[in-house]
């Protein structure tokens, strides 16, 4: 599937039909996954839904850190 992650278009090919947010965090080797907030198509997804909320073709995903060292 083709999705946009943090402003960049990417092709996600896992060999399985369904990709959850948790799967995506692992696939993309996202640093500090326990501290990342995920915005999917403009909505913040609750952490407890990461393992069930699926990513679909054309989705826009933003990884946001509010606990890290930026401004």
């Amino acid at each position, binding site marked *: 599937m083709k999705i946009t992650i943090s402003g960049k278009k990417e092709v996600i090919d896992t060999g399985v039909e369904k990709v959850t947010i948790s799967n995506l965090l692992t696939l993309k080797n996202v*640093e500090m996954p326990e501290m990342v*907030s995920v*915005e999917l198509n403009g909505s913040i997804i609750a952490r407890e839904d990461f393992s069930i909320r699926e990513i679909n073709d054309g989705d826009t995903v933003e990884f*946001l*850190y509010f606990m890290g*060292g*930026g401004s």
Partner: protein
Amino acid sequence: MNRLEFETRAIHDDFLQGQSIKATQVPVYESASFSYDDAESIADVFSGKRFGYIYSRISNPTVTALERRLSNLENGIGAVAVSSGMAAIATAIFALTKSGDRIIAAKGLFSGTYYLFQELFQKYGVETTYVDIDDLDSLRNSIDNRTRLIFVESIGNPGMKIPDIQALSHIARESNVPLIVDSTLTTPYLLKSKEYGVDIIIHSLTKYLTGNGSTIGGAIIDTGNYDWGQSFSGNVKEISQKAGQYAFLGVARKQVLQYTGSCLSPANARQHILGLETLHLRMERHCLNGIKLAEYLSHNDKVRNVNYPGLKDNPYHSIANKQFSNKHGGVLTMSLKSQEKCFKFISKLSLVKNQANIGDARTLIIHPASTIFHEYSKNELQDLGIDDSCIRISAGLENIKDIINDFDQALKEV
């Protein structure tokens, strides 16, 4: 690249960068700032799109390691470590309040906390209403639409009052205000704050969590119990729309710590991490020495009163048993006949150290009314539950026989 000049080679070397060393202890990243290979990467970190370190006032890898471990021990969602316990309290209050807001706090708080609320925050328009934690109806009735948080200590220092935390959390939830508990005297080993409905936990890392009286530090932990999207604290509520459950910690770090600068040094963070590793062993011994010392003192003719929740006739014995798994901590107070007798007694001690701290490996003692609370009025001391005949003790890790022998010989001199 051509061989660099002497001065440049004295400064630049990429030794160990990018290598996986697998050291078992957390390194001290004594680095003020962190570099990136390209402008895009550092821009992504600044905008929050990527995790990374920028400047150690905001976050630092060694401090992050401490924060993760603290949050893990408290079953929290995250932590912010700062330069002291007082900085932790101040940071949490700054994150949740603005001028015109109100704090509901227990009567008899530690003097530093009391002065922070009464002198500093009051000056900037944040009022504090002090309530008796034994009177839950009065506490409930004190909450109004200006209230932004409830603040209590898990064991009052040095009044030794213990709040019914579960009951407090229900009241806090009814009014949709977060409950903050300073768990310094209990640590995550004795008090499972999250299970009792606490929303934010404060620790002075200086005390039991590090355990050797070496290093000043503080921490704020969010248990994840509170829905910041429902908060009355405008800033936090607004940020929650993007940050979700990390809203409070995000404001604490990015809007308070970042600009007030009360950051924890990485060297201090490492000392705190080392202390955490033996917390479970030390707390058992502190509690054991605490009860044995309290029992000895309560049978000594020279001692008028002993205040320790481990004693069966203590009014907080049952609530302590329930909340702290039948353990009671290492802090207790005792009274002699007068301040004069207290001073003489303290001067005769040899092993026990007369100093302003608790939670050290050494047994410590202090006369609170003439030291920590010397600026308090008689009414304020009464609210604390102490007077000038009271002595505070922090039972250390020494052999209890040696501790008792020292108390015994000093009491004989009184």
